[in-house]
């Protein structure tokens, strides 16, 4: 049975499901209801099928490779390779897409009559199919096609809510950035083609030894920038915090949960699979990029009061964490420490899976909140835990998982990442050790700051009293939205508890890469569900889970049912030194993060705007309202993108001067070109 799924026929069925979903929803464009059900049910079915395909490819003894169709272009082959790495990413994509599609059934209802659901469903199906193709393509050109399809489809999803001018701008930025990234990727593949004479991954891989070091390094830099743009490495991240809030929430969940991971996938594929062996500095660069992204990502998240932007910045942070694992894997490989490299790679893969589950959960939860309150501004939310208890619990689960609190899954992948960094400190020489120290230090601070950030996010959205009228009338989301979120929360916990087994599977996945062939002695061992990093350290997820569960259960039981039961509990207003406590006096999300922002003001360059409006214009004694806005100046815009844009504009204006409108000048150009060409040719 599994052979059927993981075969060309199984894959064609997979693509057909999405194609029918896409085509059907376009046909039903006139009827929102039909389009909704059609597109999302087919997306569900497709994702489910995708999971089967992935599992089939995971259990298959050999990588599944096949070619579909033909093309008029000799270099383009629709060839697929489902090795375990690809299968793993297929699985993650399908898994998240499945739950997001379930969620979408109810979520998109609020677009009825406003925007066409047909086009949404069309691009949604194309988008998922594009991601699946990206993960399974085995030919550079075919990959680029899939990559662009994914990007363009997601662009149309981002601008779906097109009446907001801001969303259009976000989509524009997104597509520009992603296209720039693609340009770099194209350059990288062309260089590879130049050296190996093929776009096929297998040919590139076998010809990898012949590539000169200069070209290899160039390919590394180009593809790091190219894929890094998609993944959201700082400073290439600028599109992420803009595009995620603009997109519908289930799209944000998919984009943040899995789409940006395709960048990671391709990095693994290109660096580890195609280009190995490589010099040490590759890994070091990745480690530094990861450290910077993780730390800055979480700091920017802290400064954010738009819930979806906050989550978007956390995606950047988590990409940084994934890169730390990947970077240590590369470093270890170039230091001839393959077992440690396997550890690092497993860490990054595991964090990829985990981040996909809890980040999509958080985005879906945020979507439920926004759907009810019609605002993304956390300063206007609050108190929703009473009105939306299930959503609150789900969001809390996601928050705990992303803050790496045991026994949720985020902790165990971060644990693995830490271990690989620790191993780097323990096992490498005196120069590289400092890179690992910096990386481990930034990861440690990242963990602490992420915790602070999610206290802020959860507190500002769900706790205390509602800060706006709309937040007072929120209601629990409807069935399918909850049905999409609950399993993700359950998975966050489950992947944590069984993380020993998951790590074992991932070790098999990572071990099939060519660089790990011929190295015995798996470093990670999961006996009785325990994850161990060699002799250095181990953690036993089930024991941790049971320990916490028993401790909590014992304390709770003793507290509530055994002792001191006869004390009365009364309810009263919150004590605030006798003052009238209004929701406006609650700490705001800006206020919460203020101290951290000010501590890191050297890095974050905060901008504080104070404005006071007075009742009496002259004396200014009686303020009517005060407003303080704490913002972060966007140094990437001011120092990187704005100058580049200005430069382009200046060149453009120079070039336009050419088109002066004077016919004499035009004729002069012709003569000048003639003379110039004659001069150079003779």
């Amino acid at each position, binding site marked *: 049975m599994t052979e059927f799924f993981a075969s060309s026929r199984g894959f064609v069925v997979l693509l057909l499901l999405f194609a029918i979903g896409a085509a059907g929803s376009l046909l039903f464009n006139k009827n929102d209801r039909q389009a909704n059900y059609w597109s999302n049910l087919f997306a569900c079915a497709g994702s489910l099928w995708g999971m089967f395909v992935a599992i089939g490819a995971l259990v298959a003894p050999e990588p599944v490779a096949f070619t579909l169709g033909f093309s008029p272009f000799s270099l383009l082959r629709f060839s697929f390779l489902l090795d375990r790495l690809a299968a793993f990413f297929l699985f993650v994509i399908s898994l998240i897409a499945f739950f997001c599609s379930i969620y979408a059934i109810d979520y998109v209802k609020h677009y009825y009559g406003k925007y066409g659901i047909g086009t949404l469903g069309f691009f949604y199906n194309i988008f998922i199919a594009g991601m699946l193709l990206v993960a399974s393509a085995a030919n550079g050109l075919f990959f680029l096609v899939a990559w662009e399809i994914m990007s363009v489809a997601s662009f149309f999803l981002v601008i779906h809510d097109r009446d907001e001018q801001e969303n259009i701008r976000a989509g524009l930025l997104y597509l520009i950035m992603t296209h720039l990234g693609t340009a770099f990727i194209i350059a990288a593949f062309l260089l590879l083609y130049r050296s190996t004479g093929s776009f096929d991954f297998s040919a590139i891989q076998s010809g990898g030894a012949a590539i000169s070091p200069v070209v290899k390094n160039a390919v590394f830099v180009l593809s790091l920038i190219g894929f890094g743009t998609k993944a959201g490495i700082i400073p290439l991240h600028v599109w992420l915090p803009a595009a995620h809030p603009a997109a519908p929430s289930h799209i944000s969940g998919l984009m943040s949960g899995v789409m940006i991971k395709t960048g990671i996938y391709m990095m693994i594929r290109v660096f580890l699979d195609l280009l190995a062996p490589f010099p040490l500095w590759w890994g070091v660069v990745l480690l530094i990029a990861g450290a910077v992204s993780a730390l800055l990502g979480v700091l920017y998240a802290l400064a954010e009061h738009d819930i979806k932007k906050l989550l978007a910045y956390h995606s950047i942070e988590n990409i940084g964490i994934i890169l730390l694992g990947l970077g240590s894997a590369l470093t270890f490989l170039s230091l001839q420490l393959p077992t440690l490299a396997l550890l690092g790679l497993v860490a990054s893969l595991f964090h990829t899976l985990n981040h996909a589950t809890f980040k999509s959960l958080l985005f879906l939860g945020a979507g439920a909140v926004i759907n009810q309150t019609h605002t993304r501004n956390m300063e206007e939310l609050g*108190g929703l*835990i*009473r009105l939306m208890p299930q959503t609150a619990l789900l969001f809390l689960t996601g928050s705990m998982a992303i*803050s*790496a*609190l*045991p026994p949720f899954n985020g902790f165990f992948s971060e*644990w693995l990442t*830490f271990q690989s960094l*620790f191993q780097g*400190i*323990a096992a490498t020489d005196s120069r590289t*050790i400092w890179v690992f120290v910096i990386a*481990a*230090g930034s990861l*440690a*601070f990242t963990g*602490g*700051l992420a*915790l*602070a950030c*999610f*206290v802020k996010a*959860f*507190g*500002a959205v769900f*706790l*205390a009293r509602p800060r706006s009228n709309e937040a007072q009338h929120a209601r629990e989301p409807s069935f399918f939205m909850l049905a999409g979120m609950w399993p993700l929360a359950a998975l966050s916990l489950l992947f944590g508890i069984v993380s020993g087994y998951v790590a074992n599977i991932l070790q098999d996945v990572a071990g099939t890469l060519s660089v790990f062939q011929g190295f015995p002695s798996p470093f990670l061992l999961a006996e009785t569900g325990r994850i161990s990093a060699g002799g*250095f*350290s*181990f*953690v*036993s997820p089930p*024991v*941790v889970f049971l320990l*916490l569960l028993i*401790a909590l259960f*014992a*304390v709770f039981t003793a*507290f509530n049912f055994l002792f*001191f039961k006869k*004390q009365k*509990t*009364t*309810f*009263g207003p*919150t*004590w*605030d030194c006798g003052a009238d*406590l209004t929701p406006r*006096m*609650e*700490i705001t999300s800006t*206020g*919460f993060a*203020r*101290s*951290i922002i*000010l*501590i890191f003001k050297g890095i974050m360059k905060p901008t504080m705007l104070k404005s006071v409006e007075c009742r009496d214009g002259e004396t200014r004694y009686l303020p009517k309202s005060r407003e303080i806005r704490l913002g972060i100046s966007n140094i990437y815009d001011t120092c990187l993108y704005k100058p580049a844009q200005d430069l382009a504009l200046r060149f453009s204006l120079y070039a336009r001067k050419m088109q002066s409108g004077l016919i004499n000048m035009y004729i002069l150009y012709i003569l000048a070109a003639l003379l110039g060409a004659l001069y150079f040719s003779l």
Partner: protein
Amino acid sequence: MHTFFDILQILLIPLASPLITGVIKKLKAKFQNRRGASVFQPYRDLWKLFHKDEVISQDASWIFRLAPCIVFAVTLAVGAIIPLIDLATFAAPAGDLLTVIYISAIGTFFLALAGLDTGSAFGGFGSSREMTVSALAEGGLLFSFLVLALVAGSANLFSIADSILTTGNFYLQPIVLAGIGFFIVLLAENGRFPFDNPATHLELTMIHEAMLLEYSGRRLALMEWAAANKLFVFMTLGANLFFPWGLMHTFSPGALAAAVVIFLLKIAALCLAIAFIESTIAKFRFFRLPDILFVSFTLNIVAIGLIK
């Protein structure tokens, strides 16, 4: 026999922790030339609070009500998996230094959420400050343990203690530096001077207390108790990881007696150190605190450099 120790291990922390706070208070009183309350006063406070009624804010959710249980359970759980007296307990297989750090972070997480839950202005900024301090303390905490792990070649706390115990103090300087780094974090995480004043009545300068202002009765008792537990856990970590001498390897009555006595001496010395610091320096301005925490981090980095 082991079962007995296992139970002892679990119960020792919560049972003894109020005593530790009592002792520190007593020592502080002595430094101030006062007689001070009895060392058992914290037990009396808890006992009384458990018998009082509760007033809960009507804006509070289940987070506020459940948080004391979670915070307390977390300290219990952490207390169960650290080396206390015996190096061969059931707790050893649970995890390593990261597990301890991140499990205790659960407590901080819910404590801070509980501070936000009632919508009180004090609770809000208490949470904000607590999270700021604990976020910045995390680097120092992790790296001080990491120094030990690198010395010992293992990240398991029991193995660390064991290894340092058996190989002697070959790496004296790094361990001392890391120990100082850890001590700073201990003060920060437990809201002691110069980070926080545990006895303050001024809402505007509070960190830890501000989050508890809304609690009353038995939930307050549980929170206070959990705070005492946490302090004891940190002191135990400091005493048994950085100076592991006296820990019991294999059971024998003599070893047990020696272990208990030495452990108590170490804890007493730490209590004295904390009381001394609290009596001799003032609380720092909030925005000076990061500097101290970065000092802790830097000390540990230097220690790592010394090992290599």
